[in-house]
């Protein structure tokens, strides 16, 4: 029988004969049976308890009492500048450890926890390899500023912007290096990070060395990416029929029609392959615990020519000296990635290029000028001496051949990033309650890139004379340098195990420096640069900002039952006017461990029950421009100069100025309950929150006679986010052979602009010029769709040009627009399950969003018959198949773009990932081999008409489709 220290039986304990795969597990009464030979070592292990080994020498019964592993039960959760035991948490914090991470071809860290945490939505911004993800914790709290959470890696807060040429700032970390991710959601938890944490914090802890012999882990996988579906546009035959019956089609138009049946999307997408390899070693080298890893990733995109390659290397050293009084943590991470960015202009072009045209043409002039890429060309009044034919020019406004767009533009970049920090903890010898910590870090990214457009590109500029087709070439280089210096003292005291105090006080300095440089090298390359007229080919963009902080936090608990956390942070940002730059942001939280109360001690099915309440204020200037309070002048570039006499002068423009900018402040109140029942087989949490953002910074109108622009970023409104989050984990089966766990989370969130003196149109769409489809306005969700109300006939089909005259003035115009839905989901759910049966493991990750709407710009932009024949009658334009349903004709009536008809319910249920694995522990001696197969983006269930309902921002246009990926991988541990 296996029992715990209080002699209660422990079910489910693993009992294994060391070095073999022979093993069993204890039953519900803690009993077990196993066959063993004398001399065998029997290993007893159970999560949360210290593993014991007993040498078998013929006993019939071995009773064992396993001791709780304090380190695990009192699992420390990082909360910034220190950690607390999980049971002592007072804020809304989620910890996801590597065991719970999503499986499959995970290229960037965010994907590891997608769908796992209530209230955290992670949306990939496209289907390109290595592409960024939009992370939102509890919705959008700001209008002008960015809504990205702060990401802290091993105590180092990363810069949340991506350096130019980089697809995603978090690409820089190899997902295999990550041990755990902690999500801090409410302000009482994040306040200690101050103004950078206004949108929540994700703390990433990487794997560290262990004080043991070296262990190695090798992971390798191969991926096949395939396109799931194509945009439904007319095919060649359908299109020919439309044009042949088109009332605007004259003989000239009809003569443009071709005989081909080209599926342009088939021409630009392909099946793509990817591979990921990593190897890591952890152990003790020369008395220093260390871990080192290298990783390599190479993925093609389904858009032809798209490619992402990455090499990562990391090293962690955690030496400690002076009887652990002096502890070091040194992290160094290097990364080199190479990108080939396929020209995404091809995506939209494939939807509109006439499907009756072939991809290539044999016309000698087209071959000579454009490498044979067929297209819409007009002869101009010059003769090409090499062919004797008139020179051709791409027709203004006509679609450029999508295949030419892909093949004739080389857009490549290389990005290097180094993130390193060194942290020293010194526990004072003479006063061991006090620990002094210094953390210094550097995050430096350097990206360089080149965009080379071939001279055969149809849109290539015709140079001074038609003989020289330019192409174009531009080079850029961007560097961002983020420096950190933290110093703080931690005081830790327990008085009679009754009063437990932890206090932290410290100082932090962060600087962010950006140095961007771009260079138009074409003119120089061709040696035609004229120093008199060509003023400048270089564009330099530099800026620097500094954030300075003082912070303090007190954690107090009384017998572990009543817990208090209070913190105060003072932040100063160089982005704000010197008179207004300091902000003071307090927080406080209380928690009550009800399960530790005597009246619940008898209720043995309750393992944990904790009630929490917290309040915090956080300032925000993330994403705000630098120096906005100073009068600055911007000079013009070389194509916006002005002529006096015979000379072109650069112009200097004074920029809009706001001397009164101050902190945007979010106040959050959070009420939470953590629970664990039935031997913690059922556990989770419930949170209610309300965040009110005051002095909201929004880009809004000013009196134009008082400033140099008509709108500036200023503190003008209030916003509120409200919601409920429920997380439920159930382990329905936990037996010798089978362990089944289910994780379900659901979050209801509502964003509302509470105060905004001026409406703001946002959400530019394609169709017409400068049209916006969304509005920020008081009392509504930000980015609510602002549209004309479509009138439908008895069969539910939209009547073209018929809109509800909402203000009754007999004119249908802007004044009849109304607010209709918004792009944010009201409900976000995740449902995940893991099933282990003997050596098999199965994981399924699913997600659902409910109540999110999208503007189907792919359909709205191209569904009008007249749009198929532009007024100049010299080229053609394909239509979306929606035309076959709607029969809409009038492309020039821009009210049609504003129709509520195009705002469609994009609620969805997605099966993100299914992974099936099998572990071989005997195949190779001392090596555990796991083979797995995984499918990513398995299925989407939605009513939405477009390709994919999950559209960041809610405007579906030119979206790079997310592929369906099939992965096969092997993990080796030895």
């Amino acid at each position, binding site marked *: 029988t296996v029992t715990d220290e209080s002699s209660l039986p422990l079910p489910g304990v693993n009992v294994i004969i060391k070095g073999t795969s022979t093993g069993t597990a204890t039953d519900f009464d803690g009993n077990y049976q196993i066959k063993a030979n004398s001399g065998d070592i029997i290993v007893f292990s159970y999560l949360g308890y210290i593993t014991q080994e007993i040498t078998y020498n013929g006993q019939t019964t071995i009773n064992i009492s396993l001791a709780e592993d304090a380190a695990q039960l009192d699992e420390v959760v990082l909360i910034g500048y220190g950690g607390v035991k999980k049971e002592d948490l007072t804020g809304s914090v989620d910890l996801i450890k590597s065991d719970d991470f999503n499986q499959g071809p995970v290229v960037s860290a965010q994907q590891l926890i997608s769908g796992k945490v209530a209230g955290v939505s992670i949306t990939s911004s496209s289907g390109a390899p290595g592409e960024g993800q939009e992370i939102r914790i509890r919705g959008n709290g700001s209008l002008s500023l960015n809504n990205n959470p702060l990401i802290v890696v091993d105590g180092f807060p990363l810069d949340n912007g991506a350096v130019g040429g980089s697809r995603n700032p978090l690409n820089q970390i190899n997902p295999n290096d990550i041990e755990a991710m902690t999500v801090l959601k409410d302000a009482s938890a994040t306040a200690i990070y101050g103004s950078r944490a206004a949108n929540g914090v994700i703390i990433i802890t990487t794997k560290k060395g262990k004080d043991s012999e070296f262990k190695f882990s090798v992971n390798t996988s191969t991926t096949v990416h395939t396109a799931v579906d194509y945009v439904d546009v007319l095919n060649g035959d359908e299109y020919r029929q439309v044009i042949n019956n088109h009332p605007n089609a004259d003989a000239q138009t009809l003569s443009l029609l071709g005989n081909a049946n080209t599926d342009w999307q088939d021409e630009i997408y392909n099946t793509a392959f990817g591979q990921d390899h990593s190897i890591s070693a952890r152990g003790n080298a020369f008395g220093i615990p260390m871990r080192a890893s290298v990783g390599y990733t190479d993925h093609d995109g389904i858009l032809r020519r798209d490619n992402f390659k990455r090499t990562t290397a990391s090293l962690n050293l955690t030496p400690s000296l002076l009887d652990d009084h002096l502890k070091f943590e040194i992290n160094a991470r290097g990364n080199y990635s190479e990108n080939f960015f396929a020209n995404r202009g091809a995506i939209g072009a494939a939807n509109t290029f006439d499907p009756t045209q072939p991809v290539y043409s044999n016309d000698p002039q087209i071959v000579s000028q454009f490498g044979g890429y067929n297209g819409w060309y007009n002869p101009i009044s010059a003769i090409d001496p090499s062919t004797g034919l008139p020179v051709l020019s791409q027709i203004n406004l006509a679609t450029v051949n999508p295949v030419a767009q892909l093949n004739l533009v080389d857009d490549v970049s290389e990005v290097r990033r180094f993130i390193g920090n060194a942290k020293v903890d010194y526990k004072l010898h003479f006063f061991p309650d006090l620990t002094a910590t210094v953390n210094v870090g550097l995050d430096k990214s350097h990206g360089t890139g080149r965009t080379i457009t071939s001279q055969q590109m149809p849109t290539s500029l015709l140079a001074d004379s038609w003989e020289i087709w330019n192409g174009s070439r531009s080079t850029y280089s961007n560097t961002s340098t983020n420096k950190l210096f933290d110093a703080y003292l931690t005081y830790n005291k327990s008085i009679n195990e009754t009063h437990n105090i932890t206090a932290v006080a410290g100082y932090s300095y962060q600087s962010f420096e950006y140095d961007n440089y771009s260079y138009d090298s074409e003119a120089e390359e061709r040696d035609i640069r004229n120093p008199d007229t060509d003023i400048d080919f270089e564009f330099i963009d530099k800026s620097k900002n*500094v954030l300075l902080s003082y912070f303090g936090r007190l954690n107090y608990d009384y017998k572990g039952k009543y817990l208090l956390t209070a913190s105060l942070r003072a932040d100063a*940002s160089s982005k704000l006017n010197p008179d207004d730059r300091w902000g003071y942001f307090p927080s406080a939280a209380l928690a009550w461990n009800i399960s530790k109360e005597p009246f619940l001690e008898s209720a043995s099915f309750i393992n944990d029950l904790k009630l929490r309440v917290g309040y915090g204020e956080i300032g925000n200037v993330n994403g705000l421009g630098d120096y906005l309070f100073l009068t600055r*002048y911007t000079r013009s570039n070389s194509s*916006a100069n002005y002529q006096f006499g015979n000379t072109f002068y650069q*112009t200097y423009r004074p920029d809009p100025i706001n001397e009164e900018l101050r902190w945007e402040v979010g106040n959050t109140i959070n009420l939470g309950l953590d629970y664990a029942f039935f031997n913690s087989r059922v556990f989770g949490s419930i949170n209610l929150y309300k965040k009110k953002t005051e002095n909201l910074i929004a880009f809004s109108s000013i009196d134009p006679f008082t400033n140099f622009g008509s709108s500036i970023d200023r503190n003008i409104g209030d916003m509120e986010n409200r919601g409920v989050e429920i997380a439920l984990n159930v382990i329905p089966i936990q037996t010798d052979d089978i362990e089944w766990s289910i994780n379900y989370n659901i979050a209801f969130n509502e964003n509302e602009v509470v105060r905004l003196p001026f409406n703001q149109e946002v959400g530019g769409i394609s169709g017409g010029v400068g049209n916006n489809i969304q509005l920020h306005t008081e009392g509504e969700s930000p980015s609510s769709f602002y549209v004309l109300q479509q009138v439908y006939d008895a069969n539910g089909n939209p009547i073209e040009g018929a809109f509800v005259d909402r203000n009754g003035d007999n004119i249908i115009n802007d004044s009849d627009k109304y607010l209709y839905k918004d792009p944010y989901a009201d409900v976000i759910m995740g449902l995940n399950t893991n099933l282990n049966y003997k050596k098999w493991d199965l994981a399924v990750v699913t997600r659902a969003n409910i109540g999110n709407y999208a503007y189907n710009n792919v359909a709205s932009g191209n569904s009008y018959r007249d749009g198929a024949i532009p007024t100049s009658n010299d080229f053609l334009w394909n239509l979306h198949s929606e035309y076959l349903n709607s029969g809409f004709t009038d492309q020039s009536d821009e009210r049609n773009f504003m129709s509520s008809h195009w705002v469609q319910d994009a609620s969805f249920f997605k099966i993100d990932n299914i992974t099936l694995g099998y572990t071989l522990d005997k195949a190779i001696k001392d090596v555990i081999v796991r083979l797995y197969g995984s499918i990513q983006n398995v299925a989407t269930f939605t009513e939405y008409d477009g390709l994919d309902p999950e559209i960041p921002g809610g405007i579906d246009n030119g979206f790079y489709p997310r592929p369906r990926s099939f992965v096969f991988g092997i993990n080796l541990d030895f």
Partner: protein
Amino acid sequence: FMFSCHDDLDQSPIDPDSFTEEDVFVNASEARSALAKLYASLALTGQQGPAGNPDITEIDEGFSQFSRMLFNLNELTTDHAVVGWGDAGLPDLHGLYWSAGNDFTGAMYLRLAQEVSFCNSFIDNASQLTDPEVASYIAEARFLRAFAYYNLIDFYANVPLATQISTELPSQSDRPELFNFVETELLEIQDDLPSSNEYGRVDQVAAWALLSRLYLNAEVWIGTPRYTDCVTYSNNVINSGYSINTNDVNGNGTAYDELFLADNNTNGAQDEFIFTLNFDGVQSQTYGGSTFLVHAAIGGSMDASLFGVNGGWGGNRTTSALVEKFEMGTIDIDELNNDLGGTLSNWGLVGDATENAWDGPDMEMYETSPNQYSLYANLTAGDFKFRFDEDWGNNYGDNELDGSLEAGGGNIPIPADGPYLITLDLDNLTYSITEVTASGDMRAMFYTDGQNLEIESIGQFSDGYAITKFKNVTSTGGPGNDSNGEFVDTDLPVIRLAEIYLNYAEATLRGGGGDTGLAVDKINELRTRAYGGPSGNITSSDLTLDFVLDERSRELYWEGQRRTDLIRYDYFTSGNYLWPWKGNQPNGTSVGSFRNIFPIPTNSISTNPNLQQNPGY
């Protein structure tokens, strides 16, 4: 360490493209770049051409360009223009049903107010400089501010008068106050401005010309007629060094079209330009300005390459009301051929450009002297060759299209339908093709092929004649500087001498005490240029107010003045004068007279509680 870090909070710009006031106003030469912005903000839309770093963020950047908005507010609202695009708020303009939230009326307010702010800041900062040329800079800035206010009075009537940058919200002024400000400023600076300046910058004459405009509209704006002052200042301009361009460089019979060509800063037209907005297809790019005027007017069967651009945007046309103001000349092909004085020969034209296509019979040419042949002929777009006696045994074409003929050479293209004079020189084996324009008023620059005179549907480019006035080709037929044909070089005259002639005539007729004989002479100067001779000249009995208004249409159409002119005659909103689709009715209808003034933008009213909306909105 911590305290040095505190100092680190005081960051100032480190970007070499970003300057502070000290950098910009360090000397006159740097300040000139700030002065250039005051001009550029009326011609361009931001610090990156053609778009990307806009001055105004409330509207599409291309829409925010001053002269494009001037066209939208002052031409599109009238009988001069319609547009086929349906951009939100744009059809409201010709239909005269705009609301206070209209993006186009709103953006013009922002552009002009911003120009006032730019000028205020410039005047304030530049006055600390002592360099001698700065006095002229400041006077020019004051002129531009006065010009902005001239437009604000015209469009919005009741706007704040701001002469300094201040965060204090300004109070609302009215037309008499603003009028007084503009008048005082212009009178004050007339002597600070140089008597002549380099091209693109204003001089003394510009101040007089703007005064002439201001006084002409005084009766409408402040209720007090100032026609005598209008005559005085118009006279100053007439007697200045500016002159009407008579240099018909391209030899098409009139020097009028040279005013609107790519090289109008050098082809002679510049002598007539008092205040211009300068464009360049490479160095001063915008989607407004002349790029807009050229592209937007091309559509249907028009060949964009003949206009020096890479395509049409298929938007702007005109109404029959403008077309009918012109005396259209006719072309009598037979009479022209008679006038050649030659005899019919066996040399002829054959090809699908000719009346009998490739089959013949050929169109026979007149032999005017030995081996010299000529023919006036109506040709269609297509190709032709020269052939003797309807027999391919002896024919000429042109292989390189270089004007020299080869026996059995390639087809010679005719770009567009129309009457042409074809000549053939068998001695030198050369030929020429000249498009024949009708005599009569050659300012009537319409494209009619495939276009309907009357407009059934405003959205259809083919309804309404297209206008060919603005082109991106030089007077010698060369292309513009942007070899891709996207951006246009043509400068736009905001004030030119011809307008001042017409101001003089109108003020004289309205009792300003001018010399009627001089007025007739000046108008005849314009008409002589227009007709390529004296055939269109008038006598003093023709000179009526309505004639002057029509003459302004003929001379100045699409140059941004029509709405103001119609308001002066009380024709803009009233039923006294109707045009197609006025008030959104096919035959036109009157609208409320409150539409003589545009609304103050809703956002500006909400940001400044001192402002009251104009009546009617």
